[in-house]
């Protein structure tokens, strides 16, 4: 077929214009995809889950523990999330909740939460502060769930405290309030220019939020929720958006059957 078509070429027609057009089109069309394929995201370059790089910091006394499940589970899933983002709320309610009850409870998956509060959300930075403070006293899972469960309510007036207090005992709530006492400046949020936000010097949780945001820039997190899955020392490319639990479970089963 190629040779039959080539018989019709004259040197003039087979001159440079069509070639140049085709090559240019191919370059324009394929360049971003090839770049995306060849450029390895920071998350995939390393076999070490991103949360383990911060081990030195998080091992410090009082560091927030924003993880759920057994650290030795074969699969680690890191989720970059914003408490005020509707997709993150939907992802938590429809996917992560089922995953926590099923594969996290069975010791198959270790879930690591990273804060990536977006600048466009008025209260997501403050919500991250509450979650980190709760994580400092081992109450992360309950507060994490309470913030997502009431995502339609607290952004209305910014009264996050009400829902955090309902998720723990009064004594624990007092401890959390005490941690956040010095947080007076605006909370850190991710920035469009990808510069590290400034933590409030008086706020003990802000450095941990900033640390998560900077980690998110390295992935790179382009939208929330974004998650990375690690298995047997391998990191899989970051995915964004809402994935249903049956499909995520299928991916885990594929990994576990290897």
């Amino acid at each position, binding site marked *: 077929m*190629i040779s039959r078509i080539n018989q019709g070429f004259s040197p003039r027609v087979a001159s440079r214009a069509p070639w140049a057009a085709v090559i240019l*089109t191919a370059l324009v069309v394929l360049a971003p*995809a090839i770049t995306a394929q060849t450029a390895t995201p920071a998350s995939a370059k390393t076999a070490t889950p991103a949360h383990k790089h911060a081990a030195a910091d998080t091992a410090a006394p009082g560091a927030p523990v924003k993880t759920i499940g057994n650290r030795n589970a074969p699969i680690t899933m890191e989720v970059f999330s914003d408490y005020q983002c509707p997709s993150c709320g939907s992802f938590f309610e429809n996917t992560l909740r089922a995953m926590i009850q099923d594969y996290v409870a069975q010791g198959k998956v270790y879930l690591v939460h990273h804060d990536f509060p977006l600048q466009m959300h008025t209260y997501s930075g403050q919500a991250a502060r509450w979650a980190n403070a709760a994580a400092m006293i081992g109450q992360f899972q309950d507060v994490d769930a309470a913030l997502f469960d009431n995502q339609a309510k607290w952004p209305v007036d910014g009264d996050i405290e009400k829902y955090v207090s309902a998720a723990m005992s009064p004594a624990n709530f007092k401890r959390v309030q005490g941690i956040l006492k010095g947080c007076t400046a605006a909370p850190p949020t991710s920035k469009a220019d990808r510069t590290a936000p400034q933590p409030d010097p008086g706020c003990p949780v802000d450095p941990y939020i900033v640390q998560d945001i900077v980690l998110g820039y390295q992935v790179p997190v382009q939208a929330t929720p974004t998650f990375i899955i690690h298995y047997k020392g391998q990191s899989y490319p970051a*995915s964004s958006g809402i994935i249903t639990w049956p499909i995520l479970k299928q991916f885990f089963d594929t990994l576990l059957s290897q």
Partner: protein
Amino acid sequence: MTPNETRGNLARTLLLFGRLALAAIFLFAAYAKLKPQAATGWSGSSIKTSLSLFAMQVDSYQLLPPQLVSPAAHFLPPFELFLGLWLLSGVLLRYASLITTLLLGAFFAVMVRTYMAGLEINCGCFGPGERLGPLTLLRDGSLLALALAVAIAAFMQGRKSRTEPAPVAHVSAPQRAD
């Protein structure tokens, strides 16, 4: 060379390079979806994992029910591979280019719908790691236009070859008259 001949040659050039470009794009798309997504070698297991990862990207479009996501994700990459090889072979090009145009049209429609709905997801067009945005829409729109042009050229070429006598007949006819 007459303007008609020039046009004919240009159409043939478009047909050849257009279908080769589309073939390359489809083969690359299939490769990107099937290749090992972690630092492992090619194996049946790595392909299965890659297809499961691709299923998550299909799922993120929130278009199909979960029971259809996996069949779609397991069908598309091998079909893209088949289509790429078909386009490369040039056999029954009219049908190959028509199917390519319909497939790219469907992809483009789904992508536009998803983008308009404000979903911030990975495109999944050439494997993981590429966000769906204006540039991916522009790229897929350009591919659709190219596929449409190739399909039109292939159909015109086919019609022309059915209605016009072959060039050999023009040469041999006067000889027979003599």
